């Protein structure tokens, strides 16, 4: 029986600039800048500003102490997200969401949080130190950082079945949700010397299953840290995705994966396509072939292209929805949108890539790279082509190419601005975000499954939230509205 597919995305952003070009310092400045913004009127001032972060109407920042804090910052936002420094990157972990469309909104909100942080931070430091941020996954020199999806899965499903069901999807979905990359950067990738790859991450994967995320990266990560009742739930931590600039790609990535997990929970392994004999070879081979012709041998002795896998998986999801619905994932209307977009992107990428250049990142990127190369008669190795790749993911509005290539938008600026501040109402992120907004002085810590209060006297008080579907607006709004103080809230919760 499928459980509600609570889901979200964590993104480590690439970062350049800052004092002494130290990425840990720069990341701390970004996170601290946003944390300060959130606690001052400046935050409020941003609301009426143009979303493209025009330099006009900048808030007065003279009230800031000249901070260059180097301790690793870690904050919880009023929208329920976590913003912190992870290794040497600023990371935004979205709040838990109830549907793919909602999670897409909160992923876009993360970009906006980073843009605002960037703007505030760059007002605090010297121009020559200016920081820039990139929503991408590698530096082109063999260093990769992650965009991880998380899905709530029933503990009843055996993990070996998760592996068997999901590997075909994870090796093949890049043909519609890959972010694309010029060239290669790992030993294995450089051997093939490609001009372009569908996925920036594919060449970094070396194992089928494993616990690692930084070395020997596995297609299926076994981290078993549900951030919820471990008797009932798993959290599938998916580390193989690319960071998407296209909202439709994010939506289809989340929607297709959530639907296939629901199929597995409801109907078991039976109808899933066979695994490739060599999944690592498959994910790398598919990435290297923009013509989509590459086929791999599978455990049922059939050969499949990435497109074949996706076609089979789409039919599996489609048929399942016809028979069982998709309540675990989203409303019927939203499920239909997942299925129609998934299908259109799949057919488009094979038959008429231009028709999906407004949705598929790698197609949009390759289109401008090829065009630019022809216009200026550049060789394959020209640095300007790599610069286009990098600037595709650039968050600076004046440099961003993703903002210029005509990608479809699912959530407009108003919705994104709203989601920067307010949590989704559909999960426990609502309670977390609301507590942070209402009682900031009394909260000493918050994480995915609890909020800890310090009322000034007596022991710290921890409010556990082990069920991601409790703490919703429906369940807690009245309680929060009628609790003027943290003390009143805790007393009411005790009753």
């Amino acid at each position, binding site marked *: 029986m499928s459980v509600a597919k609570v889901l979200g995305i964590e993104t480590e952003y690439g970062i350049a600039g800052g004092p002494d070009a130290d990425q840990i310092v720069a990341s701390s400045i970004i996170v601290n800048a946003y944390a300060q913004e959130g606690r001052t009127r400046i935050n409020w001032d941003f609301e009426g500003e143009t979303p493209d972060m025009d330099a006009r109407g900048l808030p007065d920042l003279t009230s800031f102490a000249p901070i260059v804090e180097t301790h690793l910052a870690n904050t919880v936002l009023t929208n329920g997200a976590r913003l912190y420094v992870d290794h040497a990157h600023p990371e935004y972990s979205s709040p838990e969401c109830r549907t793919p*469309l909602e999670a897409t909104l909160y992923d876009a909100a993360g970009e906006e949080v980073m843009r605002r942080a960037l703007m505030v931070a760059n007002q605090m430091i010297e121009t020559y130190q200016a920081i820039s941020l990139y929503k991408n996954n*590698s530096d082109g020199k063999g260093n990769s950082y992650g965009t991880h999806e998380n899905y709530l899965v029933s503990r009843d499903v055996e993990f070996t079945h998760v592996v068997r069901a999901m590997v075909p999807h994870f090796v093949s979905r890049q043909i519609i949700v890959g972010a694309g990359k010029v060239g290669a950067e790992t030993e294995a990738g450089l051997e093939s010397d490609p001009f372009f790859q569908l996925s920036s991450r594919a060449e970094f994967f070396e194992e089928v299953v494993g616990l690692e995320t930084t070395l020997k990266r596995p297609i299926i990560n076994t981290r078993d840290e549900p951030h919820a009742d471990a008797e009932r739930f798993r959290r599938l931590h998916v580390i193989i995705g690319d960071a998407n600039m296209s909202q439709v790609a994010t939506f289809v990535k989340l929607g297709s994966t959530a639907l296939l997990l629901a199929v597995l929970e409801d109907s078991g392994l039976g109808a899933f396509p066979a695994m490739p004999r060599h999944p690592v070879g498959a994910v790398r081979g598919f990435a290297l072939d923009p013509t989509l012709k590459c086929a791999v041998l599978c455990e049922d002795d059939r050969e499949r292209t990435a497109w074949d896998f996706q076609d089979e998986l789409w039919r599996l999801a489609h048929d399942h929805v016809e028979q069982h619905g998709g309540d675990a994932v989203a*409303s019927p*209307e939203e499920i239909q*949108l997942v299925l129609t977009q998934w299908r259109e992107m799949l057919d488009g990428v094979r038959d008429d890539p231009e028709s999906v250049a407004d949705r598929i990142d790698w197609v949009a990127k390759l289109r401008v790279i090829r065009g630019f190369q022809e216009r200026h008669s550049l060789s394959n190795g020209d640095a300007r082509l*790599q610069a286009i790749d*990098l600037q595709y993911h650039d968050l600076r509005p004046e440099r961003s190419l993703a903002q210029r290539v005509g990608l479809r938008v699912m959530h407009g600026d108003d919705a994104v601005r709203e989601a920067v501040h307010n949590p989704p109402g559909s999960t426990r992120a609502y309670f977390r975000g609301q507590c942070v907004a209402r009682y900031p002085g009394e909260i000493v810590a918050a994480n995915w499954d609890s909020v800890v209060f310090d009322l000034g006297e007596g022991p710290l008080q921890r409010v556990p939230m082990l069920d991601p579907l409790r703490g919703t607006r429906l369940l807690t709004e009245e309680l929060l509205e009628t609790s003027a103080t943290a003390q009143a809230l805790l007393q009411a919760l005790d009753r």
Partner: protein
Amino acid sequence: MTEQERIQKQRTERASQAAPEVTVDATKGDQLKADLDDLLDEIDEVLEENAEEFVRNYVQKGGE
């Protein structure tokens, strides 16, 4: 004009209380530059002046 997709989501208690409307805004898609040249003109303008240095200096520590 190409397609217009707009599916009004009915309010249900079951899912997505915070997602009032399910939409793919095709207007942005319509703006997909029919003329690639216009887009390339724009890229000529915003591309980092010293691409080689820009690319070379972008070195990250691994993450995750």
